[in-house]
Every structure is written in structure tokens, then in C-alpha cells.
């Protein structure tokens, strides 16, 4: 009984996206695909504990979902007297070509992350259609009402249908831009998990980081030769490896220099390092995610903060700034420079970013830390105040508050 439940949970994770993708191709409608898949899983939950898990659960689910979808189309065809349309949809299917199922999942991902959809809609639709998270789960993850999230997903599905967002691979010419759009969605999901926002939220939301990694692995299996896909996966793995060390028992965020490096996940680090090495060996100019992964590889190679190869990190930030000359990259570079040239040098650079980063909590947190190290207590206190007011992560707020309390 319990085994069947566990099996269903696992199979749901593995098969949901496949079933939705396969139905979307066949029926050309996300709504029908989603509902058919949901009904099939509901029947599995009902029957499998008693009947046992079928030998090929994926095929069973796809067949059941297909049947449910056809039932619905017939029902609606009767109701709306749209016999012709429904028949056309139903008879249009051709035998499934070999290996087409994985391609379908990729098509589904590209449809969900289409540039004509807003960023929030892309995230929600991807987590629902590809990841199989329920609407309440996604609503909780992004701290919005269930009804709001439900509407967001419904609207997105309606736009896909009305505007005819295609269920097919982007053209070769569009592919790099479209892949980077997908990666942006996954990175957003990961970051929301890694530095969760919301005053009543856990500082780290493992379910979101895990889901982002799982979907990035899937993308990597489907698009094996993209350096930025590898880079993003490596970046996520090397970040996730530090997850348990990153929050103290009291729920406070632990900064990199104070983390117990023995608690880092060696297997994730090894996998991340391997990916970074492969990208270096490829000899292709790295993109943003590969550089960020390399920076994290340097951090996770060091036994302690003093042992860190800061000049290597500054060099990588120099490379990153050429691709992404944003003030946030400049801020992180300045912090790294501070580890070599001292807090005074770092502070001078960071102060120059003030007009553009005044609303960014990490800018004030970085200033506060540098001012503290320079013994400028009053200024540090004001910077901590600003950082605490702007920070959205409970663990970070706890950390900053303690630091502020320690000032002379």
C-alpha cells in the first residue's frame, strides 16, 4: 500500500511532463492535456494501491490520459455542437515516431517559456505543465493566493491557445535565444528556492531548488551540447551543495566565510566541478552561467575563505562584466577585490554604485560589512538598517540583525 503511494509519487515526478507533452502534441491544447494527465494520475492513486503498479506505468498513464481527454472532447463537442472540430482533432493523430516523446517534452518547455508570455506566467506554466507541481504548490512557492496563481496559469494557457503559441522546436536561428529564455526561467525558480523571499517563509526552499535542478537536468538530457545548459546545471549544483551549511540551527543565514565546509555535499561539488572542467576543456568562450559556475567552482575548491583564489575570482568577474555590465556584477566583483586589496578599496568602488543599487539589499549588506570591518560603527549601523529594511529572506534578516547588534 505504502509502496504503491511512494511509487506513484516517484512516477508522477518522472512521467507527468511526458504525459502532458504527449497529449499536447496529440490534442494541440494545454488545458485538455493537463486535465487528462491529472485525471489519469487520480485514477492511478485510486487503483494502483489495490491492483498494483502496471509494468509500464508511463504507457498506462499516457493511454489513460488520452482516453480521458477524448472523453472530454466528445462531451464538449456534444455540449457545444462542435462535432467537426473535435473529430478533426481526434483523427489527426499519426502513429508516434520513435523517440518523439522526449522531443515533445522539449516542445512543451519551449511553449511554456515562450517570449510572448510574461516572466511570471512562464515560471508558473513551466512548473505546472512540465514539473507537475499543483496550483496550490506553485502558489505557496511564490507567496500568492491560490486563486491568483490559478488565474495566472489559466490566462497563460488561454494566450497559448488564442495566439497559437506553437508546439514545436524553435528555428535553428532562434534556438540560442529561446534556450536562454528557458534557462532564465529555471534560474529564477532556483533562486526563489535558494534565497526565498517572504517574512513567513523558510530561508531556503529545498523543494524549489530541487525542482529547478531536476528540470535543468532534463533540459541537459534533451539539449546535450549547450555550454550554458551545462553551466547553469553546474552553478545550481555548486550552490545547492552548500545548502545545509548555509542556514544555522536557529534559521540564520551563514555567510560563505563562516560556513562549515565539512557539511558541504561532496557528491554535488564533484559533479559541478566535473561539468566546469568539461566546459573549460571545450575551449568555447563561456557564457554567463558558465562563468558563474566557474566562480562557484573556485569557492568550493578552497578549504577556507583565506585559501580562496580571489585573484582567479576577480578575473572571472572581469570576464562576466564584459558580458553583463550590470551594477550587481560590479558589486560582486568589488567584494572579491576587497578580499585582495582590503575593505577600503572595495568600499570606494561600491559607494560609486550607490545611485543604481540604492534599492538592493545586498548593496547595503556589503557596505555594512565593509564599514564594520573598517571600524566605522555608526555608518555600518545605518547600512545594516537599510539592508534589513530591504531584505526579503528571513535567514538573511536574522543574520544582519545579529551583526548589527554586535556593533560597538
Amino acid at each position, binding site marked *: 500500500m505504502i509502496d504503491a503511494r511512494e511509487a506513484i509519487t516517484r512516477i508522477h515526478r518522472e512521467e507527468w511532463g511526458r504525459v502532458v507533452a504527449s497529449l499536447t502534441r496529440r490534442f494541440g491544447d494545454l488545458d485538455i492535456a493537463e486535465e487528462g494527465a491529472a485525471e489519469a494520475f487520480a485514477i492511478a492513486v485510486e487503483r494502483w494501491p489495490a491492483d498494483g503498479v502496471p509494468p509500464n506505468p508511463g504507457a498506462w498513464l499516457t493511454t489513460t490520459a488520452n482516453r480521458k481527454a477524448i472523453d472530454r472532447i466528445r462531451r464538449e463537442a456534444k455540449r457545444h455542437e462542435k462535432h467537426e472540430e473535435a473529430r478533426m482533432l481526434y483523427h489527426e493523430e499519426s502513429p508516434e515516431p520513435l523517440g518523439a516523446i522526449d522531443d515533445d517534452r522539449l516542445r512543451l518547455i519551449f511553449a511554456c517559456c*515562450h*517570449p*510572448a508570455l510574461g516572466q511570471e506566467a512562464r515560471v508558473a506554466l513551466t512548473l505546472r505543465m512540465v514539473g507537475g507541481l499543483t496550483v496550490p504548490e506553485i502558489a505557496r512557492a511564490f507567496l500568492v493566493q491560490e486563486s491568483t496563481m490559478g488565474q495566472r496559469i489559466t490566462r497563460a494557457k488561454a494566450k497559448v491557445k*488564442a*495566439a*497559437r*503559441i*506553437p508546439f*514545436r522546436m*524553435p*528555428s535553428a536561428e*532562434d534556438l540560442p535565444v529561446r534556450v536562454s529564455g528557458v534557462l532564465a526561467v529555471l534560474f529564477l525558480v532556483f533562486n526563489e528556492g535558494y534565497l526565498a523571499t517572504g517574512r513567513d517563509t523558510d530561508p531556503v526552499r529545498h523543494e524549489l531548488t530541487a525542482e529547478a535542478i531536476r528540470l535543468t537536468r532534463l533540459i541537459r538530457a534533451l539539449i546535450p551540447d549547450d555550454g550554458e545548459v551545462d553551466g547553469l546545471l553546474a552553478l545550481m549544483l555548486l550552490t545547492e551543495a552548500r545548502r545545509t551549511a548555509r542556514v544555522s540551527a536557529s534559521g540564520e543565514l551563514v555567510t560563505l566565510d563562516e560556513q562549515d565546509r565539512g557539511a558541504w555535499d561532496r557528491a554535488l561539488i564533484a559533479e559541478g566541478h566535473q561539468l566546469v572542467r568539461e566546459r573549460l576543456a571545450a575551449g568555447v568562450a563561456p557564457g554567463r552561467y558558465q562563468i558563474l559556475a566557474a566562480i562557484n567552482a573556485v569557492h568550493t575548491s578552497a578549504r577556507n575563505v583565506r585559501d580562496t583564489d580571489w585573484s582567479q575570482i576577480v578575473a572571472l568577474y572581469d570576464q562576466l562584466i564584459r558580458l553583463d555590465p550590470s551594477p550587481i556584477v560590479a558589486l560582486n566583483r568589488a567584494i572579491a577585490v576587497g578580499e585582495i586589496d582590503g575593505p577600503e578599496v572595495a568600499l570606494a568602488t561600491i559607494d560609486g554604485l550607490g545611485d543604481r543599487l540604492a534599492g538592493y539589499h545586498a548593496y547595503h549588506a556589503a557596505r555594512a560589512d565593509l564599514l564594520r570591518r573598517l571600524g566605522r560603527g555608526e555608518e555600518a549601523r545605518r547600512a545594516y538598517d537599510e539592508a534589513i529594511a530591504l531584505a526579503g529572506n528571513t535567514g538573511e534578516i536574522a543574520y544582519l540583525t545579529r551583526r548589527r547588534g554586535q556593533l560597538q
Partner: protein
Amino acid sequence: MHYLVSVIDEKTGSATSAEMAAIDTYNDGLKAEGYWVFAGGLAAPSAATVVDGRPDEPLFTDGPFIESKEYLAGFWVMEAPDLDVALKLAADGSKACNRRVEVRPFLGVAP
């Protein structure tokens, strides 16, 4: 599948001769590729009249039904297989007329 591609502008009849030439070339391309349905430029919104024919006596009101700084200055109706194609055509159209455009799908078109 039909798409309405609206040209967003703050002025009317403001296209330069170079823009007009680019639009002509673009239109020829649409026709040659089979995407063309219809296109046109519109007079200023101040030339519009709102009509309510539901009462016994039709009601005429001077001006557009919505006042805004930016308005619909012209449009294309195109036929494209999906949004990816429509967006690409619209991007080229935007470049040709040197204005932003909005792409909106038709729910359907009358036979």
C-alpha cells in the same frame, strides 16, 4: 490563423518617405510569401466618431472611444501558421515602419 498587427504611434501620417518606401518593400514581401491579407493607415483619432446604434435614434459622439497619448495609427492583417511566424513578421514590420507594433490574434474571421 489571422493576426492583427497594429502600429502604435503618437502622430498620424508621420511616416517619412524612407519609411513609406520600407513599408512598400515589406508589403511586397508579405504578398510574395502569402502572409498578406489587408493593411492600411488610419486618420487621426480626432477624426473618429463613436456610434451607438442600439437606441431608436443612433447616437453619435465626436472623437475616439478611448483617449490616449498613443493610439492605433495603422495596421496589417496577416495570415500566419502560428505566433512564432507572426512575431517574426511583426518584428520586420516594426523595423520597416520604424514604430512599435502590437500583435493580436483574431478569434476567428467571418467567411
